[in-house]
């Protein structure tokens, strides 16, 4: 059988990412030396490959630049794969997140005890990203599932990258188990849908799906599987432990990029495939959103470990992301992508600061070590404040804009004479009240940094240039994405062109 190779032109993002992966693999293979067992006194490894991280970052930047121009809608490989401008946009956003992760990881990955895994780290990041690209581009449940697995399994390796650390290994085990479990549930749901519809192509299903008990069951199981990935309540139990144990850089990656990809996939599948069953999944989303936001917020208040804290914060943010889907229109894609983009920069800024402080504070990430940080490290504390304000939805930072737009999307077209309309407004109201709760716990960190007295605050340290670069990108994003509307318009035009 002959394959029409020109079809690959439709999937340039995947091709360039694959090229990146291969180049990194060869470079790693060609220059790696025998693994050096980390010495206890932590002396620098003489064979350090200083060029490696910049190379990967440049390749990733090139990948973004090549793919930043909007693609046209097209289908390839017999309808298995599709792409359109809004898919192109979310792929760019995910790649941007990965780029920030790569830049920011330099300080950590070039440490003597992790340095010999540098090549693997880049390859794993690239392959998870490839999996996510497949996932959002899938037009068939099988390809979707393959993409999802391709994103999860390397992710488990990443979580366990510090395998000599007990925590990291434990959280990797938890991640593998929940990932396998959720995949199982999702497959079960997909099998129901296949049983009812006799096809796995999205377009075919969308054309004839109706709400029968079987399809509803299928949808719910499918949703549960994705709910694990996005870590929505009540599928969130793995989140805190995994986030805490994983290397901080990976936690950042897990909390923004992986979550963003799954949320976009959920959005497009619910709207496209299960569109006719909107009244069923809307109610489901209402419940899940309210639970995610509220419960995660209440748990976050009590956390003292900053990574656990950010885990609960990310669960509640996931609730806001999913809230965008409720509106069921082109605006849902726009506001969701925009929210993910803003969330990527804000959360990565926070994780860059956490990781940087962790490196200079013997690996502790509890909130006490932030007491009085402003006195000794004012710039770092200030950037952290900006990022937290953005997460909490305070203007003029981008977070307020993305939140407001998500709310606009959620109640778009809702009328007060229908139950679902009243529910939409009520859910937005609950979400709004929760923004106040979330502000409370974000302010706790601000309070620690600015107000809490500390006899022995963390002494001043100079951040690595890579961390500075990552923070600069994030801060620029936090300030620009809100005040300047170009980015939103760019995403919106893509979404409208895709409908």
């Amino acid at each position: 059988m002959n394959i029409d190779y020109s079809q690959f032109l439709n999937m340039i993002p995947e091709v360039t990412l694959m090229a990146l992966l291969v180049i990194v693999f060869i470079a790693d293979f060609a220059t790696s030396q025998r693994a050096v067992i980390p010495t206890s006194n932590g002396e620098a490894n003489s064979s350090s490959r200083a060029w490696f991280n910049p190379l990967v970052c440049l390749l990733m930047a090139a990948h973004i630049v090549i793919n930043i121009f909007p693609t046209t809608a097209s289908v390839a490989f017999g309808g298995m794969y599709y792409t359109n401008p809004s898919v192109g946009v979310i792929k760019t956003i995910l790649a941007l997140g990965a780029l920030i992760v790569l830049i920011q990881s330099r300080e950590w990955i070039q440490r003597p005890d992790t340095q010999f895994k540098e090549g693997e780290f880049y390859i794993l990041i690239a392959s998870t990203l490839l999996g996510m690209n497949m996932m959002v581009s899938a037009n068939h449940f099988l390809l979707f599932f393959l993409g999802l697995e391709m994103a999860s399994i390397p992710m488990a390796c990443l979580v366990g990258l510090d395998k000599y650390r007990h925590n990291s290994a434990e959280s990797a085990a938890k991640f593998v188990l929940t990932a396998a479990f959720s995949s199982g549930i999702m497959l079960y749901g997909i099998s129901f849908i296949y049983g009812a519809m006799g096809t796995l192509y999205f377009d075919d299903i969308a054309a004839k799906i109706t709400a029968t008990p079987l399809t509803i069951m299928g949808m719910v199981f499918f949703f549960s599987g994705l709910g694990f990935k996005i870590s929505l309540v009540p599928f969130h139990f793995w989140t805190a432990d995994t986030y805490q144990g994983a290397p901080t850089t990976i936690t950042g990656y897990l909390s923004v990029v992986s979550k963003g990809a799954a949320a976009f996939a959920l959005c497009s599948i619910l709207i496209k495939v299960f569109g006719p069953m909107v009244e069923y999944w809307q109610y489901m989303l209402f419940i899940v959103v309210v639970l995610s936001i509220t419960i995660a917020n209440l748990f976050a208040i009590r956390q003292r470990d900053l990574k656990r804290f950010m885990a609960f914060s990310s669960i509640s943010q996931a609730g806001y992301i999913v809230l965008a889907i409720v509106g069921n229109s082109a605006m849902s894609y726009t506001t969701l992508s925009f929210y993910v983009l803003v969330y990527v920069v804000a959360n990565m800024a926070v994780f860059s600061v956490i990781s940087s402080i962790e490196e200079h504070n013997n690996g502790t990430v509890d909130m006490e070590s932030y007491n009085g940080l402003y006195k000794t490290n004012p710039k770092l504390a200030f950037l952290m404040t900006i990022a937290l304000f953005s997460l909490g939805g305070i203007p003029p930072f981008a977070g307020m804009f993305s939140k407001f737009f998500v709310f606009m999307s959620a109640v778009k077209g809702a009328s007060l004479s229908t139950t679902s309309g009243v529910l939409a407004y009520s859910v937005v109201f609950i979400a709004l009240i929760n923004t106040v709760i979330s502000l409370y716990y974000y302010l706790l960190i601000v309070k620690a940094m600015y107000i809490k007295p500390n006899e022995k605050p963390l002494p001043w340290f100079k951040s690595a240039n890579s961390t500075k670069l990552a923070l600069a990108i994030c801060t620029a994003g936090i300030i620009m994405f809100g005040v300047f509307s170009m980015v939103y318009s760019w995403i919106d035009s893509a979404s409208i062109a895709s409908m």
Partner: protein
Amino acid sequence: MSILTLFVVIPVLMLVGLWLAKNDNQVRGVMVVGASALLGLAIWLTITFIQMRHAGNTELMLFTYSTPWFAPLNIAYSVGVDGISVVMLLLSAVIVFTGTFASWQLEPMKKEYFLWFVLLSIGVFGFFISTDLFTMFMFYEVALIPMYLLIGVWGTGPKEYAAMKLTLMLMGGSALLILGILGIYYFSGATTMNINEIAALHNIPVAVQKVFFPFIFIGFGVLGALFPFHTWSPDGHASAPTAVSMLHAGVLMKLGGYGCFRIAMYLLPEAAQQLSWIFLVLTTCSVVYGALAACVQTDLKYINAYSSVSHCGMVLFALCMMTQTAITGAVLQMLSHGLMTALFFACIGMIYHRAGTRDVRYLGGLMKVLPFLSVSYVIAGLANLGLPGFSGFVAEMTIFVGSFQNADTFHRVCTIIACTSIVVTAVYILRVVGKILFQKVPNKKFFELHDATWDERLAIGGLIFCVAGLGLFPLWASNVISGAVAPIINHIMSTTAAAL
């Protein structure tokens, strides 16, 4: 580009200047230049506005400018001013200017303090010039959050608690606002978020209006110290540093009244008509309760904070009366209360800075040792209790005359109850003045205190000038304001007549 944008651009430039400033003197220099520029701009705007009105320009808003911002969502950056915004801008500029001098000697971290202070003023100015729902709301929130750090870092007393309480309550209010704004935008069917255009469309169903009116009114009311959502105010004001109390009580609380009028009542007129009685009861409570609570406080700042609850309650009270005279009085009261409460907080802050206590029981005989500050305090007090010749009298007189124009028993009873606050105000003001200024000096150390320095005299002198100026020559302000109130109140009333 409209000239009004300068009200945002100048503070942004000030932020940049502060960021670059190397030492305290440069910080002060940036602040003085920026605050003077703002004050000059506000005065120029007021004069030009009055001239344009005299020249017969009867458009609803002057200096309008609009450019799409988030075009897909119909969000625009649109600005414009009418008489109400003009006087509010003038008030804000005066308070920012005097607040700069009141925090001249603030320590530590002067630079950071002024950074947040200027960010707050960006929010305030932006709020008053905006005519777009989203833009206005964004500026509103910009004005709220710096308070947390300003109180938390530079405050006194239980500052962490006060800062958190204030921030969360005000953000809770703004959460209600978001919902109200979404409701107004979607149910008006408008393709714009411009307030004037939504008002002109006027097609929000009455049932929907009644749902969203409380959200907006309470949302703004929290900031305007609406009973029972006022509890952040005493704690917040008591813990805040001097200039922040001035700016917050003087200007920020006015955002509440302004928003209630401009958004809640203007855009949801039928609901305002039908539901105003609920808020009338609440605001009457605010007025009387605030005054009575002030009587039993012993901390000077708490006394003034409760007095602010009472006076800001008066603003909302007058709005709920919905006659042109009463609402003109409400805006006058915003102006007058802004100036005199800033004066009050400035005096209290300076006394506290010297004496080391704000407790009435441990203060006394200050007239002998701090004559300048004491005289200023007396003036502030007299203005507060509504002595003719000061701004307070003009405002309260207008409010009560306007309120009494409502012929029905309910409104008249509320008016009479609210009037009693005037007497109660006199009680707590005179009691405190007598106790802390005129008795024996209880503490030998007080004899070593120094009176106000030049920067403090400048701040206080400026405020006294404004308070007395407004009290002696109220007509220009009253004309400017009532010219702006008339079209809005006509809109509210006429549409109701049609709907009934």
